[in-house]
């Protein structure tokens, strides 16, 4: 049987998947993050990146930025499923608006000596990464940028002596004067 049959085989359709960045404004109350994550795991959606922090403490608002992948139908579902949760105020698909800036911060630890130290500093300069910790045999760089730039920097550090990486995940905001 090579054609999809019944709802159970929907997932086996190989429709092209897309990556979308969603900004979700939620009431900052206990369990709200568990609700959002539980939705993704329970319904089998992907989380590529997840960033969450309180953004307006007076109003107890938190902003969750989720990068997810799926077919257009699944992305649509994810947005509706998020939107109907009681503590969710708004869901904005930053990818669809096409007018958003995405940034990620990473701290990258590199170990090495001699030419490798020089090379690491040279690359860091090219990527506008800052040195935030240094010993005689290591650096910790702080780099900010879109995910591709951060990944590229990490890839370049690997042969030089990459020890470990801590990434914040993607934060996104719309361009222009309007808020979400």
């Amino acid at each position, binding site marked *: *049987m090579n*054609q*999809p*049959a*019944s*709802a*159970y*085989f*929907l997932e086996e359709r190989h429709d092209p998947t897309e990556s979308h960045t969603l900004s979700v404004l*939620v*009431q900052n109350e*206990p*369990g709200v993050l*568990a*609700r959002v994550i*539980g939705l993704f795991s*329970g319904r089998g959606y992907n989380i590529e990146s997840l960033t969450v922090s309180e953004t307006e403490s007076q109003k107890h608002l938190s902003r969750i930025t989720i990068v997810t992948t799926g077919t257009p*139908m699944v992305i*649509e*579902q994810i947005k*509706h*499923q998020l*939107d*109907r*949760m*009681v*503590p*969710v*105020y708004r869901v904005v698909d930053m990818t669809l608006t096409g007018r958003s800036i995405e940034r990620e911060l990473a701290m990258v630890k590199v170990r090495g000596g001699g030419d490798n130290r020089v090379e690491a500093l040279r690359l860091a300069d090219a990527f506008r990464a800052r040195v935030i910790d240094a010993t005689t045999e290591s650096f910790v760089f702080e780099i900010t940028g879109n995910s591709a730039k951060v990944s590229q920097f990490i890839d370049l550090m690997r042969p030089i002596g990459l020890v470990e990486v801590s990434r914040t995940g993607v934060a996104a905001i719309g361009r222009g004067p309007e808020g979400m």
Partner: protein
Amino acid sequence: MTDKSHDPNQMTGAAMIVRALIDHGVQHLFGYPGGAVLPIYDEIFQQSEVEHILVRHEQGAGHAAEGYARSTGKPGVVLVTSGPGATNMVTPLTDALMDSIPLVCITGQVPTHLIGNDAFQECDTVGITRPCTKHNWLVRDVNDLAKVLHEAFYVATTGRPGPVVVDVPKDVQFATGTYHPPRKSDVHVSYTPRVKGDATQIRKAVALLAGARRPVIYSGGGVINSGREASKLLRELVEVTGFPITSTLMGLGAYPATGKNWLGMLGMHGTYESNMAMHDCDVMLCVGARFDDRITGRTDAFSPGSKKIHIDIDPSSINKNIHVDVPIIGDCGNVLGDLLQVFKAEAKKPDIKAWWQEIAVWRARNSLAYRKNSEVILPQYAIERLFEATRGHDTYITTEVGQHQMWAAQFFGFEEPHRWMTSGGLGTMGYGLPAALGVQVAHPDSLVIDIAGDASVQMTMQEMSTAVQFELPIKIFILNNQYMGMVRQWQQLLHGNRLSHSYSEALPDFVKLADAFGCVGLQAIKPGDLDGALKEMISIKRPVLFDCRVAALENCFPMIPSGKAHNEMLLPAEATDEATAAAFAGGKALV
């Protein structure tokens, strides 16, 4: 400090809970006491406005509350203790979530300082029930309790209804704080269900309907949930348009079974004419249903030539399984009202005579026909006779899950909404008996019948004791074929007739069992005994357990093998061994 001792709104958390129930018009509460809810039970003892129905297992309380809610349109309310009390509620909560039933469940919790300590009868109730509720709350401060309780009722009953849990630690029940009656500001500002449909979309829908030549209306449980007015409007729409109408299992009764445009139920065990109409239609109007896999069959072959209009209050139901052309987000009743108004003002009844002629040909196949038998009672016959026997009575039907449920849906005619209580989405065996209790509590003078199977009924039969204690004269009508009939049917059709563990070796003697519980036990073995025994059952004003012995190996037809299209339905007359084998080839992996 001011003296608050005379402030009537100063009270303990436990008192607030009872007070909130009263303020929300709750008359009945289903529950089971335990350590972590003792303060609440103490308050219940000292008042008479809310009647508490003591069940025998928390699952029974949940299903009873569901039956209560479905038959009244009011929320069902449950009170259970922490730990096992809460975990036993998981099944009914999930059931209510799947079928959009408003439940408010209050659970006790260990004192706040013990939370996280693996205390006696502790469990992470909000964590466990998060995926099976519409929303839930853990209340850590008694001064938040009133707000949370009011919000809980609001969330459960508005938008797409569903179950909610309020978890209240024991120290919060003892603590004193300030209560306030329900007010608007109790609700999350982020929770704003949409009730009114978009006018442009409604106009588009009317244009499609007016131009239809082969239309069908497909209604679901959303129409029932929306309230009686929605059913009335649906009937009016059918009248005004002259369109044929079918419904999901959950939607039975919104349009009367005797209505002239009624095609019967659709889906896996629906009628041939309804499924063919769905497959061949040019415009489909879906009202408050969700294109579930039991309805659609094979999704890529689902109604291939139609434009689809979908009315639903939950945006996440739109385009979930099936792409629709005109989505309308809003409450079924509200949208139907607007749609009717526009249709009457701007459109004419389209001429669909040719379509009705096509439908008549399908109808003539008589897809629910079965061979009569004078030796053994056929289950279809039993339901038909039960339906006849209950005519003229104010009847409510609940069911368990399996073959008997499908036969009940096929052969019992429902004329009104809120008369049919069945576990549709989750398919919970053991739902029907406790649900019947809930229905009977809400309608003490009505005839409430649980159409059961011999396997399902054993899952929650302890609740017969509840029926006796509270003098709830429910009738448990068991189609006893000594098998888990639907499991056996699938094993026969899909697994080489290897009947692995679907035979109940040691069934109880149901008549003696009834006696042991203090109910009345009846039995019918021959078709000739049936009518007399049914009459007797209905005349008895006490709980009755009716053991109706039916043909053991009868299969439920018609059937769309799962993974097949609507026009690949297997009819009973054609279900020879070869045809069956061919129809089911390759479908084994599906549910």
